[in-house]
């Protein structure tokens, strides 16, 4: 019999192998062992391909792509998972072991109401009547701080926000009071500000349910907030295992060191201040639908101005839907601005691609977020890079081959990769090719739209280093679009904060470290998890709820509904006025006095 001290979950000698078509098999998880005491959270951390999700799914006796699971032991409570057949496993899944997937938007059936799916585990396992199940679900919805818990379940996936869906999925997992909950990157797809809220609710819910949990993530800082124990994985093997605090404070392996280093980008030197403005954007408006009086029917960005000096880098930051990518598309000419001016080197650019000369097109290049979809999978690396060489510079044949080899060297890829199809490359290699393609045009301005968000931390950090080095060597002005404020802070000379399509703050690198910021910038800074297990608890109640609508009157501050320092009678009646001090401009009533005093002290 299992004694009191015996762990709730025990795994030893877990191997998972993929059967290849030629009859051989390839190990994707190799000899993994761990034990979790009841009520604790174990984190599986590693990059893509490390086997972390594969291990987590093996806890339910499930494997993707028909991989074979074998283990000395996989025990959950009194169940020997590795000894159960498919039928018995079906009874365990969703009742005693529950799973929370990375993307709730994809994991919910789009044509069924949410509540019918949330109560499904209770119904299919015969644990409750439909009426009882519904009541229990509504109870969980309110425990998970979902708005209007009575009716939210009757909606469909497309009617609910990402953060809410993730909580609804947690309710679906918790509804059967499982012994083990598996959370597979549950906050990765969310904005930082939403992530904090969801993390907090998840942590409380796990504690309240008394369940044991396995938390799969690539993000050390997130893991630090929820995990008691951490297992670091690389290529299906365990690299290191230990108590969360100890492992983060004093990592033993080089690999863990590199993960921690990548999570803390090193600050780069700022570019000289006197650089002349190369690209200027003046009071630009853009959006979708019919344009009337310079305003689109569905406006996305309003009154955005910025200036970028030669060889400088500007970071644009904001949550999803803030208009970051739209701004890049407007500068690049993909989406014509409905009003305002964009100048490059003093020359006025036409709003749309069709009105720009080839030479103007060449000077502004975009690097897209998702190299997977930006590259034609049937093209070779050589073809992908040679195309802009021919288009912009008329370089063909042997000269093009030589230039492609040069560019591959610049982006630090083997010349032998030139003949590979782009679909045969890894994510990091694809993003490098994507970058080389932009560099082939020899641009003066490089627009990098979330170039690392689809990549693993370590790989992404290397790409950022590369772009930073190239910018300094070649004097290319860069715009980094990112949702990650710590990246922008480390790499950019200047930062621009967008909120519902409006610039709420711009600040220089020097001014960034001062404590005075727009309340929205403050919220973004506070939402980035620190590599400190106490961070989430310390954050406490400072956060206002992240779900709020923008005010109906577009002249007012767009952040009003979420603002913790809004002044009643002022912020809700007068448009925020622009305040400028050394290296900083922001739109806010509330922080102006502070700014003024700050300026006095200097």
């Amino acid at each position, binding site marked *: 019999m299992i004694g009191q001290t015996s762990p709730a979950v025990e795994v030893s000698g877990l191997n998972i192998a993929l059967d290849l078509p030629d009859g051989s098999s390839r190990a994707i998880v190799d000899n993994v062992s761990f034990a979790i005491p009841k009520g604790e959270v174990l984190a599986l951390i590693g990059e893509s391909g490390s086997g972390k999700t594969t291990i987590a799914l093996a806890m339910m006796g499930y494997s993707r792509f028909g991989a074979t699971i074998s283990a000395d032991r996989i025990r959950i409570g009194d169940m020997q998972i590795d000894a159960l057949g498919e039928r018995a496993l079906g009874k365990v899944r969703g009742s005693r072991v529950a799973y929370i997937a990375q993307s709730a938007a994809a994991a919910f*059936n789009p044509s*069924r109401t949410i509540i019918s799916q949330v109560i499904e585990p209770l119904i299919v396992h015969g644990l409750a009547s439909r009426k009882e199940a519904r009541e229990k679900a509504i109870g969980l919805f309110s425990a998970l701080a979902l708005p209007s818990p009575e009716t939210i379940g009757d909606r469909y996936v497309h009617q609910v926000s990402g953060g809410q869906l993730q909580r609804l999925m947690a309710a679906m997992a918790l509804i059967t009071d499982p012994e083990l909950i598996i959370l597979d990157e549950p906050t990765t797809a969310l904005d930082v500000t939403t992530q904090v809220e969801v993390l907090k609710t998840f942590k409380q819910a796990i504690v309240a349910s008394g369940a044991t949990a396995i938390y799969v993530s690539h993000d050390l800082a997130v893991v630090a907030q929820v995990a008691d124990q951490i297992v670091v994985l690389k290529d299906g093997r365990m690299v290191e295992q230990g108590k969360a605090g100890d492992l983060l404070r004093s990592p033993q392996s080089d690999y863990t060191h590199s993960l921690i280093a990548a999570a803390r980008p090193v600050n780069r030197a700022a570019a000289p201040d006197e650089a002349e403005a190369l690209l200027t954007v003046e009071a630009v408006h853009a959006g979708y639908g019919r344009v009337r009086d310079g305003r689109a029917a569905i406006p996305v960005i309003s009154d955005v101005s910025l200036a970028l000096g030669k060889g400088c880098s500007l970071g644009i930051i904001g949550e999803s839907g803030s208009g970051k990518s739209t701004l890049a598309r407007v500068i690049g000419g993909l989406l014509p601005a409905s009003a305002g001016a964009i100048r490059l080197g003093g020359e006025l650019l036409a709003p749309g691609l069709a009105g720009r000369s080839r030479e103007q097109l060449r000077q502004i290049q975009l690097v897209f977020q998702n190299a997977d979809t930006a590259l034609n999978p049937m093209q070779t690396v050589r073809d992908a890079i040679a195309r802009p060489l021919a288009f912009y510079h008329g370089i063909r044949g042997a000269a093009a081959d030589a230039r492609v080899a040069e560019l591959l060297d610049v982006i630090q890829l083997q010349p032998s990769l030139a003949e590979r199809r782009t679909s045969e490359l890894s994510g990091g290699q694809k993003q490098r090719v994507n970058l080389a393609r932009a560099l082939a045009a020899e641009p003066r301005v490089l627009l990098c739209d979330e170039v690392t968000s689809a990549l693993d931390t370590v790989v992404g950090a290397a790409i950022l280093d590369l772009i930073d080095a190239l910018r300094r060597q070649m004097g290319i002005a860069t715009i980094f679009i990112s949702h990650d404020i710590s990246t922008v802070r480390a790499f950019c000379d200047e930062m621009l904060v967008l909120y519902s399509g409006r610039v709420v703050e711009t600040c220089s690198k020097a001014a960034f470290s001062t404590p005075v910021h727009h309340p929205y910038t403050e919220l973004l800074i506070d939402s980035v998890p620190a590599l400190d297990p106490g961070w989430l608890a310390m954050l406490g109640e400072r956060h206002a709820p992240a779900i709020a609508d923008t005010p109906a009157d577009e002249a007012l501050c767009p952040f009003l509904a979420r603002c913790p320092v809004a002044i009643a009678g002022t912020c809700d009646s007068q448009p925020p006025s622009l305040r400028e001090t050394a290296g900083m401009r922001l739109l806010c009533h509330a922080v102006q006095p502070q700014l003024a005093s700050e300026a006095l002290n200097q």
Partner: protein
Amino acid sequence: MAAPAANAPVWLGLTRVVLQRIASALLTLLLVSIVIFAAASLLPGDAAQEVLGQSATPEQVAALRHEMGLDQPAVTRYLDWLAALLGGDPGRSYIADMQVTELIGARLVNSLSLAGITALVSVALALTIGIVSAINRGSKLDRALNIVTLSLVALPEFLIATVFVLLFSVKLVWLPSIAMVSPEATWSEMLRSMALPVACLTFVVSAQMARLTRAAVADQLDRPYVEMARLKGVTFRRIILFHVLPNAAGPVLNAIALSLSYLMGGALIIETIFSFPGLASLMVNAVTSRDMPLLQACAMIFCAAYLALILIADIVAILANPRLRS
């Protein structure tokens, strides 16, 4: 499950969407009527010449043309025809000296029963084959079904029909090779006489439906929500019925509608081989004899049937998809 009060505006919006679809189908039918009339007018030769034969004098032809109204301008003839059609009268046959409605009446019933029985058999067969092969993707069964359906798509229907006649009528002498449909026939006699045409048409239309159903169901089976359902311990049967089919309904229904619309007008070869008195052969006769009122009426029926099927598929797909519903 949801409160009725919250649903009222949804139903209102839904009714509006459905009415819009119906209106656009009617508009399409109107445009089609123009095309049909124009195409019929472009046919070389004319009915007066056809009726009187080669020996008629130009004066006789002209007199008959005047009597038939063929000397009127095309627009006038079109509007007269359309007005009569809306009043339920497609006109009088030039050749048979009968009302078009009378000529079509019996044939339409025959065609509709042939299409109806074939639809019942082929939809059931195609859905079963499609779902079974999607579930067993990559298995021997799937590959076998794949080869069979692909061959059936490729085989011309006259070949299938001829082989069937040889096999069932000539060698085995189980079924009649000629589909005699008389009003006095009992149900069992009628079914017996229709067995071979139905079987041939089923072969022709279900293969395509089965392949499209397989593709739609297989596509849904790869979605993350199916994996999520498995990880909730949902049985496979329930995954298919509760999760996959509502999402696959849109493409599957469209495939069914497209295949079934073929049954009315496309059954010509089958009608000819089995001497089946259906609409398609009637329409071909109308073309050869330049019997414009009959030809136009048949063409309008085929187009209306096609539009009705597509409309039903669209509306059911909207009902199955909450995103389209709102």
